[in-house]
C-alpha cells in the first residue's frame, strides 16, 4: 500500500523534492505538500481504492505523512469491508 501511496504522491503531490527522499514518517507538508496537492492525492486515492474519505479523515493529520495516509486508508478499507 505504501508503494501505491508513494506512486500517487509522486504523480499528484507536486512536491519540490523526490518522494523517495521523504521518509515514511516524515512530514509531507514540511516537504512542501500544498493543501491543493493533498486534495489531488486524496482524489487519486479515492479512485485507486474505490473509496470515499469520510469527514473524520478530511484534515491535515490524515495526510501529514506516508504512514498517516496508510493508517487512514487501512481504517477506511476495514470499515468498508465490515
Amino acid at each position, binding site marked *: 500500500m505504501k508503494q501505491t501511496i508513494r506512486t500517487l504522491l509522486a504523480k499528484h503531490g507536486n512536491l519540490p523534492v523526490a518522494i523517495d527522499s521523504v521518509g515514511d514518517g516524515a512530514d509531507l507538508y514540511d516537504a512542501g505538500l*500544498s493543501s491543493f496537492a493533498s*486534495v489531488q492525492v486524496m482524489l487519486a486515492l479515492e479512485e485507486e481504492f474505490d473509496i470515499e474519505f469520510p*469527514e473524520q479523515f478530511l*484534515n491535515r*493529520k490524515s495526510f501529514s505523512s506516508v504512514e498517516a495516509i496508510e493508517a487512514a486508508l487501512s481504517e477506511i478499507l476495514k470499515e468498508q469491508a465490515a
Partner: protein
Amino acid sequence: MTAASKITALGLTERAKRAAKIAAGFADKVDIEGRFPSEGMEALKAERLMGIMIRPEFGGEGVNLTEIADICAILGQACAATAMTYAMHQIQIASLADYAVGSSWHEAFQKRICDEQLLIASATSEAGIGGNLRNSICAIEVDGETARLTKDATVISYGAHADAIMVTSRRHPDAAHSDQVATVFLKDQYTLEQTSVWDTLGMRGTCSDGYILKAEAPGEQILPRPFAEIAAQSMLAVSHLLWGALWYGIAADALARAQSFVKGAARKSPGQMPPGALRLAEASSLLQLVKANVVAGLKQFDTCKGDSDALNAMSFSVAMNNVKIGTSQTILTIINHCMLICGIAGYKNGTPFSLGRHLRDAHSAQLMISNDRILGNTSTMLLVNKQDTSLLG
C-alpha cells in the same frame, strides 16, 4: 487601586466604546491624510485593551475571541483604520497566546505586551510569493544563538508604528517554501527600508507600506511551533472572524446613517413614507445576515478551540472561508443600499450622512486575502468535503 486596575475593573464594552468615541473624532482626518490612527490606538492603549486576550498568568485578562470581535465591531463603527489595526494586532496576539506556550521568551514578551501595551505588526507577504501566506522565499539563518533574516515585505501594515513585528520565513535556507516559522522581532532588532507607499482608495490609515526588513535577534524568539500549524489552526480563522466583525461595524454605521436620513425625511413629511424606507428595511435584513454569519463563525471557533483535530478539519476551513466571503460581499451591498437611501447627502463628503469613507474602506474586504483565492481554496476542498447541512452542528 492603581489607574490600570481601575480601568480593567470596567466592562470591556464600556472601555471599547470610550476608545471608539475618540477614534471616531479622527476617522475622516485619518482617511484624508492617509495617516496612522494614532489617537484611536492611543485610546485603546489607555483603556488597556491591547493584551486582554493574553492569559492572566502572563498579565492579560484571558478574554475570548468573541469579546475581541465585539470590540472590533464597536471600533468598525467609529474608524475602520483603528479597527483594522486593532484586529491585525489581535491576530498576532492570538498566535502568541496559543502557540508560544512553554517558551520563556515569548511568555515574558506577553507580559511586556500587557504592561507596556505594545502594538504588534506582522510581515507575511513577500515579493514573489503571489500573495500566499503559506509560502516564503526568505529563510531565517540561525548562527549559534543568533537568528538573522532579511525579507522583501511587500506590505507591513502599520510597520513604522509597531513595537514588534512577527515575521514568517522558511525554517532554514534549505527548507521547502511551505516549511515556515514565525519569529518575533522587537523594534530595536530590525531596520525598515521603505519600498512602497500605501496610497489606496480605502483603509488608508493602516499605513500598509512595503519595506525591506532586516532583523537580527536571539534564536529563542522563533516561535516554537511550525507556522503551518499556527496559520491553519489560528491565524486564518481569527483573521476572517475579526475582519468580519469590523466589516460588520462599518456596515452597521452606514445603516445607522441611512436610518437617521430616513427618519429626518419622515419628520419633514408626516404621514408619508420616505422613498428610501423600504430599501432601509432590506439593508437591515442584510446586516442581520452579516451579524449571524460572524456570530455563527465565532461560536464554531469557540467550540473547536484547543481541539487541533477540529481546527484542522477541512469542514472548519470551509466554514471560516465562507464567513469571510459572505461578510465581505454583503457589506458592499448594504453600503450601496445606504448610499441610494441617502442620495447626494451620502455621496457628498462632510455631511452627517456621508458614506464615501465607508464604501472605500469596505472595498478592501474582498481584496484582503483575495476572495478569488479563498474561493479557489474552498472549491478545492469541496472536491472531497461535503457541506455541513445540519442547522445546529
